């Protein structure tokens, strides 16, 4: 059940993961014997093409961060293959490398951590934090090192003089930028972003997401973007993979996955997101119960305990991840027969006008009635559909999204 698509030339693939497993032992008793296994990641397959962003989503405890770390061998994988296309060495099997070989490959694979507060050493200046990978790999020293650090700080939107300050002097968003600068220091090919924006405020989150997108374009980066926020993942990813209790349950192009999900779990996840639209209040179909424990996963399909469509076969037989549509993999027995609900395409954003000084000057001199703009039609109707703002001509700030034809 390889996920390798025949359409993808092997050369285009930067990273391929085959049957990756990471089990953590549970010890117990006087002799600390291994009494069980937490199957955090239990056989996942995916690939990432050069220059693309693969989003990896799932609830907490589904193994998505473990998968990201196992790829870098920050956790030693239990089983499976991790094939990385190194620019100098060609395809290397990360899981087989010795420590020395790994050190030579790792500059090309970097990681940005979730918590911008605990991932920076409070006793090192920002300059030293960013310089550390350069020093360890003996890439630069002296003036060249200082210049490179200054350059990196500028690239991520900070100022070179920030190098002499300590992390505590920075806000969460700025710290995350420092973390990104450190990851960029060695000109990597692949960056694993482990929930890089989940600790940030919405406005700062937007800044960091835009920065990541800019950097991707500028430096031709490939991202594995691990996150639990589906709207963020949709925004940044080319393709999305959904994990549930250590398995991949679905993987497809972003648009396809969000609009045409093929796995009931994806449908439930998408349905649970609170929509930022007060006129479209809805009650998501509640998923009963909790995520099963990876130490004691259910038999058959992992999702059958909570799945509204579960049937007898789901309890006994685990569905493999298979290509149900071209380029769309799902692990469900009934993908073909179920008609699952995705996200409706968003035709417009309610907010598309920013008041500008001219309009207001007019308003202040004249009568203010004209100022309540056309977006406000019929507050009483409580319709389930946001109104079209076609008539709101004043804006033109370019944020309105046209319906896809």
């Amino acid at each position: 059940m390889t996920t390798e698509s025949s359409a993808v030339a092997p050369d285009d693939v930067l990273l391929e993961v085959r049957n990756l497993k990471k089990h953590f032992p549970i010890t117990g008793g006087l002799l600390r014997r291994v009494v069980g296994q937490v199957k955090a990641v239990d056989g996942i397959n995916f690939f990432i093409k050069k220059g693309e962003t693969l989003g990896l989503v799932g609830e907490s405890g589904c193994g998505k961060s473990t998968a990201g770390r196992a790829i870098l061998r920050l956790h030693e994988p239990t089983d499976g293959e991790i094939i990385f296309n190194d620019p100098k060495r060609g395809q290397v099997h990360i899981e087989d490398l010795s420590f020395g070989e790994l050190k030579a490959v790792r500059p090309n694979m970097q990681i940005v951590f979730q918590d911008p507060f605990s991932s920076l050493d409070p006793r090192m200046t920002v300059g030293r934090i960013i310089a550390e990978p350069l020093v360890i790999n003996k890439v630069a020293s002296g003036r060249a090192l200082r210049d490179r650090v200054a350059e990196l700080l500028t690239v991520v939107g900070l100022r070179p003089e920030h190098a002499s300050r300590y992390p505590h002097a920075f806000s969460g968003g700025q710290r995350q930028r420092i973390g990104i600068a450190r990851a960029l220091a060695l000109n990597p090919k692949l960056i694993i972003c482990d929930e890089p924006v989940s600790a940030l405020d919405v406005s700062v989150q937007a800044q960091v997401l835009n920065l990541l997108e800019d950097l991707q374009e500028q430096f031709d980066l490939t991202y594995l973007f691990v996150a639990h926020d589906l709207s963020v993942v949709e925004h940044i990813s080319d393709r999305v993979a959904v994990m549930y209790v250590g398995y991949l349950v679905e993987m497809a192009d972003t648009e396809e996955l969000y609009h045409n999900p093929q796995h009931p779990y994806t449908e439930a996840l998408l349905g649970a997101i609170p929509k930022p639209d007060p006129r479209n209040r809805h009650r998501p179909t509640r998923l009963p119960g909790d995520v099963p424990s990876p130490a004691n996963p259910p038999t058959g399909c992992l999702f059958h305990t909570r799945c509204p469509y579960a049937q007898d076969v789901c309890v006994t037989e685990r569905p493999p991840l298979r290509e149900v549509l071209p380029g769309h993999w799902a692990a469900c027995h009934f993908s073909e027969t179920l008609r699952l609900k995705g996200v409706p395409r968003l035709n417009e954003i309610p907010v598309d006008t920013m008041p500008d000084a001219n309009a207001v000057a007019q308003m202040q001199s004249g009568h203010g009635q004209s100022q309540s703009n056309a977006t406000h039609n019929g507050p009483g109707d409580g319709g389930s559909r946001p109104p079209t703002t076609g008539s709101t001509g004043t804006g033109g700030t370019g944020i309105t999204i046209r319906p896809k034809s």
Partner: protein
Amino acid sequence: MADPVANTGSTATTPDGGVDNLIQVENLEVRFYTQVGVVRALNGVDFNIPRGQVLGVVGESGSGKSITGLSIMQLVPRPGRVEGGRILYKDKPDSKTINILDLGRQSDEMRAIRGDDIGMIFQEPMTSLNPVFKVGAQIQEAILLHQTPNKQEAWDRAVDILDKVGMPNARRVANSYPHELSGGMRQRAMIAMALSCSPNLLIADEPTTALDVTTEAQILSLMRDLQSEIGTSIMFITHNMGVVAQMCDEVAVMYLGRIVERATVDDIFYDPKHPYTISLLRSIPRLGQKRGQRLEVIKGGVPDPYSTVTGCPFHPRCPSFMPGLCDTVLPIEAFIEGKTNHTVRCHLYPGCTPDSDQAVTGVSGTIPTTSKAQ
């Protein structure tokens, strides 16, 4: 009615003065006296929570949302102090109004209100539950304090309320310790504790921020059920605009210790006025939005809390910044023309720019302009 309401000054009498407000906060000021300097956490906050309604309080971290909630509970942590204003609380529609701030922090009256009349759900369920007591015992404690002296009855009610918040096998959960529960279950236990005495007001401080979407959906639908069942008013503190849209009746947008816009949830999303509100709404990635669409960002960050910003606190980041006005004069809160429940604090709108004489008499008397404070 459509008059600019600048003359109401900063006390901002409730737009619908006749409405039965459970809580009415007037000109609340909180400062933190730290060794490094004074942090002006709240600079004159006015709002009201009508009985049975859900008020959303949104804003970035550092905007004073949580401190507003804690002030109502009289739980502002040291070295913070409530420096001014009133928090008027009305137990029942016909009962006497009391100013919570007149009660001593540890007085019997305050203790009777705290937990009984006003409940609070904290953001982090793990740190807010005591790890060495059983979940049931912690809920029982609140019931014993406020409702009944009978231990067995209190325990039964604790189990009942756990059942009510959708806890599977409530009896077993009541007998387990917090570490044995998952994040969603812990948060439900917190909600159960806050609801154990059927409070008039529930202050929910980012109750779902640490949770997954599926659990979040469960908690939100639970809170909605309980709200319609018990008739509790909710003050919902969050920065998730999706949650606001789904849950709230009215919204107050906060920035740097001031409310910059107040309106119904529909107006906030479909007719927002303050540039900050607009920017905030634009910066969220929306589902269904095409990839490659750049997110609009608010330039810069929330200013350092120790510094003071002259004029409108949002002016350094504002896309509609008007030099000479926004950076010198603090806008006052005024109603949007033709609306009785939509106020904004921005020079772009008539009535928000104080006349020079008003600035001397009415306004700066109650809201200290930051320029003066320098």
